[in-house]
């Protein structure tokens, strides 16, 4: 219990703070590199977004300090209250939201705008942690599992009503937390397998996929041959899964693409992952040819991903160097300050820079899991997993969408993307975790 006697600031987790500051600083320099022109008279131009981001960073640090100085019990005690407030604001936003690019997920007060969906992640994380850590909660019962799922899905549903599906998808990352706290393995396996199968069907050639899936099934069968010998259900399960995925990838998807979906729907699906429509599906939808010319340019997500891939791909191993990113600096990649900020890293610092950045994120997530597992109180542990999962989802989906591995859903890269809502909500997430972790020897209720 020696740690308790240390002062509060000595109990803060230095590694996490260092990683946080490093990432935000990288973000600042990246936004700077995108915005800066060699013709600018000075670098301190307040109208430029990088200067705004510096201010947001200052605000984030200030709020962080306040959080550090707050009693850790405060967060668990007021968790449900915050959550209810959050839901209320989300509810208001559905009707009072400002229209930004077709979604109504922003609330505007004067010139100040913020996205309640971003902030509500924190409240949901706190509420989920609070609920799961209640002594009376038994997560093995169906009732309590349903309550947990509801805590996560209610805000997601409201955000979907605000037509900001990408942000709503973030809430599904809480299933990882619930898995950690006792949801059955099958949830995870089925979930991941489905996502993997859908993506693989779109990205990988059908014949190759057939061979790979069959090979995987055979290898599993071979490895579990001793178990399966006595286990008919196991065999049926294995063959069933193999059969289902075959049916899905080899029959259902081609059938749907060829006979059910309209041409523009097919275009939309492929363009969100930045691919040209394969010939096999293109021929099927050849009915209306005149749309072909006009349709391609109008589709903005297709353009985004292509330009983004060009920017990242042109970086090579070493990158073009700081301030030399021709694609990003000259605004070929849309939204390169926010959702597509990774392009600027990929272009200017190449594979090496990307490797370092991915490494930093993985280190941070691993550190958070490490922090989670050293807690006495399960509230902090669950909250830590929430933070790790949110970070993971944002990181993985954001980078994947810039390189054409995932559909373009507008979610930001944590700490790097420009934007007050995003930077502040991630900072608050992290600082609450750091504050809670400082009291890791105390049982928080």
């Amino acid at each position, binding site marked *: 219990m020696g740690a308790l006697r240390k002062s509060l600031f000595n109990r803060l987790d230095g590694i996490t703070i260092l990683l946080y500051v490093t990432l935000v600083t990288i973000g600042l320099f990246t936004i700077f590199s995108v915005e800066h*022109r*060699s*013709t600018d008279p000075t670098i301190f131009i307040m109208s430029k977004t990088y200067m705004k981001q510096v201010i947001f960073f200052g605000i984030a640090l200030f709020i962080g300090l306040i959080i550090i100085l707050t009693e850790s019990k405060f967060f668990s005690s007021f968790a449900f209250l915050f959550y209810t407030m959050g839901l209320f604001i989300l509810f208001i936003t559905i009707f009072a939201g400002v229209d930004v690019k077709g979604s109504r997920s922003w609330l505007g007060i004067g010139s100040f705008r913020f996205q309640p969906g971003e902030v509500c992640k924190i409240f949901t994380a706190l509420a989920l942690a609070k609920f799961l850590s209640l002594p009376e909660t038994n997560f093995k019962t169906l009732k309590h599992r349903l309550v947990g799922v509801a805590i996560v899905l209610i805000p997601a549903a409201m955000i979907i009503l605000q037509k900001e599906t990408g942000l709503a998808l973030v809430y599904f990352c809480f299933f*990882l937390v619930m*898995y*950690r*706290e*006792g949801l059955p393995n099958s949830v*995870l396996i089925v979930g*991941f397998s489905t996502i993997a199968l859908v993506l693989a069907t779109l990205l990988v050639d059908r014949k190759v996929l057939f061979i790979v899936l069959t090979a995987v099934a055979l290898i599993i069968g071979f490895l579990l041959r001793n178990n399966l010998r006595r286990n008919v259900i196991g065999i049926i399960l294995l063959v069933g899964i193999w059969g289902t995925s075959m049916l899905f990838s080899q029959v259902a998807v081609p059938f749907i693409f060829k006979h059910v979906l309209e041409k523009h729907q097919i275009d939309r699906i492929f363009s969100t992952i930045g691919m040209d429509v394969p010939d096999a599906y293109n021929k099927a939808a050849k009915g209306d040819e005149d749309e072909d010319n006009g349709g391609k340019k109008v589709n903005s997500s297709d353009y985004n991903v292509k330009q983004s*891939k*060009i*920017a*990242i*791909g*042109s*970086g*090579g*191993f070493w990158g073009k160097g700081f301030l*030399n990113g*021709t*694609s990003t*600096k*000259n*605004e*070929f990649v849309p939204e390169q300050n926010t959702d597509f900020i990774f392009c600027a890293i*990929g*272009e200017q610092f*190449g*594979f090496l820079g*990307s*490797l370092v950045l*991915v490494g930093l*994120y*993985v280190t941070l*997530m*691993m550190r958070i*899991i490490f922090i*989670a*597992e050293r807690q006495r109180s399960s509230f902090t542990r669950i909250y830590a*997993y929430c933070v*790790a999962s949110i970070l*993971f989802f944002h990181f*993985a989906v954001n*980078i*994947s969408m810039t*390189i054409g*591995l995932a559909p373009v859903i507008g979610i930001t890269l944590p700490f790097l993307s420009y934007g007050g809502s995003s930077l502040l909500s991630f900072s608050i997430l992290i600082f609450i975790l750091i504050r809670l972790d400082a009291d890791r020897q105390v049982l928080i209720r």
Partner: protein
Amino acid sequence: MSNTANSRQYVISFIFIGIAAVILLRLFFLQLFEDKYKVMANDIAIYRKVVYPPRGIIYDRKNRVMLYNQVVYDLMVTPNNVPKVFDTVQFCNALGIDKDTYGKLLNRIRVRNGGMRQGPYMEELTPEQTARFQENAYIFPGYELVERNIRAYPSASAGIILGYIGEVSPEMLKTSRYASYQQGDYLGMNGLERSYEEVLRGQRGVHFLERDNFNRPREPFKGGALDTQEVAGKSLQLYTDAELQAYAEKLMQNKIGSVVAIDPKTGGILAMVSSPSYDPNLLRGRERAKNFSNLYKNATHPLFNRAMQATYQPGSTIKPMTGLVALSVGAIVPSFGLACFGHYNLCGRPIACEHHDAGHAANFRLALAHSCNSYFCHIFRLTCDNPKAGGVKKGLQMWHDYFSSFGYGHATGVDLPFEGKGLLPDSSYYNNRYHNVWNSCTIVFVGMGQGELALTPLQMANGMCIIANKGYYYTPHFVRSIGNNEKDTLLKSYLKKHIVTSVSDTTFSVIQQAMQDVVESGTAIGAKIDGITICAKTGTAENKAIVGGVAIKMANHSMFVAFAPRENPKIAIAVAIENAGFGATWAAPIASLLIEKYLRDSVSVKRKAMEDKMINAHLINKYVYSIDSVQRMHFQEAYKAKMEKKMLEASSKHYTDSVMLNRWLRNQLDNK
């Protein structure tokens, strides 16, 4: 903490690391193995801007500018930067256009370039428009004046010398000679602009700029490390005297013909006129195409450089040369005389001579001063038949070699493109023509400058240089120095002294004396200038025009060649005026005025009347226009006939083909 919970910690860690690994794998392939993205990134983001240096300036012998670069302003517009609230009235007033035109022009740019890119709203603004716009430029956002250079000729003269520039054509781009040009480049199309294109154009600079998603150029790529700097074109200094040139053009106005004046000591051309001349300023800028086709269609052919492309029978002006050869080969001595009574009868059909009095050809001096046809026909025959040569064929060949060394019969090599070479007949020419059956009587007219011999005025003037220099000449040329370097490689061939086939100094002295007599007591007395010894020879050349395939005898060409002063000659000149009559009437005074102008800088008061007469004389015959239209019709018909013949051939070939096909098919059927 249960055991399951603990193991799930690793499952989650595994998922995090696994997904990160997938992302890194994808990045690995994307960034290291897919080169197309690098190419695409450069394609979309780098803008290659070609910067054109100013072309070289051309100065005359006294450093007066003859051709320079004028700055003109183009008004550029970026449609989207033009605000909704815009003072259209003020703008239209500044440019002097109405509101409809304003909208039309703006729309044209919007359609062509889109709203974000800058395009030319109006090209080559007049100075008034420029001034009015600049006064109020700050209230016209979105508009910008951009500088551009165009070629400008300060005086409206010397068009055929200086030439003009034009846009390189797609056909030219296909040839290797123009490999370094790109579409849209301008290059010298004619005159010195063409001959010295290499040095005048300088070196293009290429600047690499980054451009943004709207194709607007931004900052230099890699800080300009790959850029090449433009190098301005070198300037040329000419031997030409701009004042003399303008004066010569003025004297030659309303006449068809040409003047060539050369400095015999250097071969530098002092003036070259082809009349009618044109204002070179017509062939630049916006109106070039229209003006060019007008000039091209003009019946008097102003674009045709008569001074070096037209060939004339030199008439009597060749007599000094005939004499030179005859004396040189020893066919005659200076005291040789001929009794001429107005006819030369030794070759059957009598050849007329202007003079009837006995003794006008008593010796060489008198014969040349009076331009006795009989005398020169005879000495030409003596030259060809001279016993040293052995036979007329060898004799003519000897004469040919002399004339060839005078620069006749081949291009002199002047630094203008498309020079004519004239015609200098030799033995094989007559062998072909007369099937080997000819003698000195057959070709006797050549001795008096008629017959097959044809020279360009430039060659005639060059001939005068040889006599003036007593036996040598430099290839006539315009350019004295390139970028102040007189020994530039392009000028090397003009520094070489050409020495003619051995003619002794005394022979030249005889010729010079006789030519001096021409002015002082002979046919060209009107050309005499007090205090300047001029050596000259008049000429009145008979000629025929071929109209519609029929040769028609036309009025005589008025010719004159001269050099002055006799000692230490400074100017050699040839004047040819088509269909104007006697050489002494028109060509001689004009040459004389030019000599005086050049040597004394001004024309004496007592010769003003002559000057006015020359300037005001209108010597273009009406039939020039009718001949031209008849010729055009003839060409048109010839072209039509040619096309018809082609079509006939093609169709008959088809006919043969189809007959053969039918036959073959029938054979196939028969075999079955």
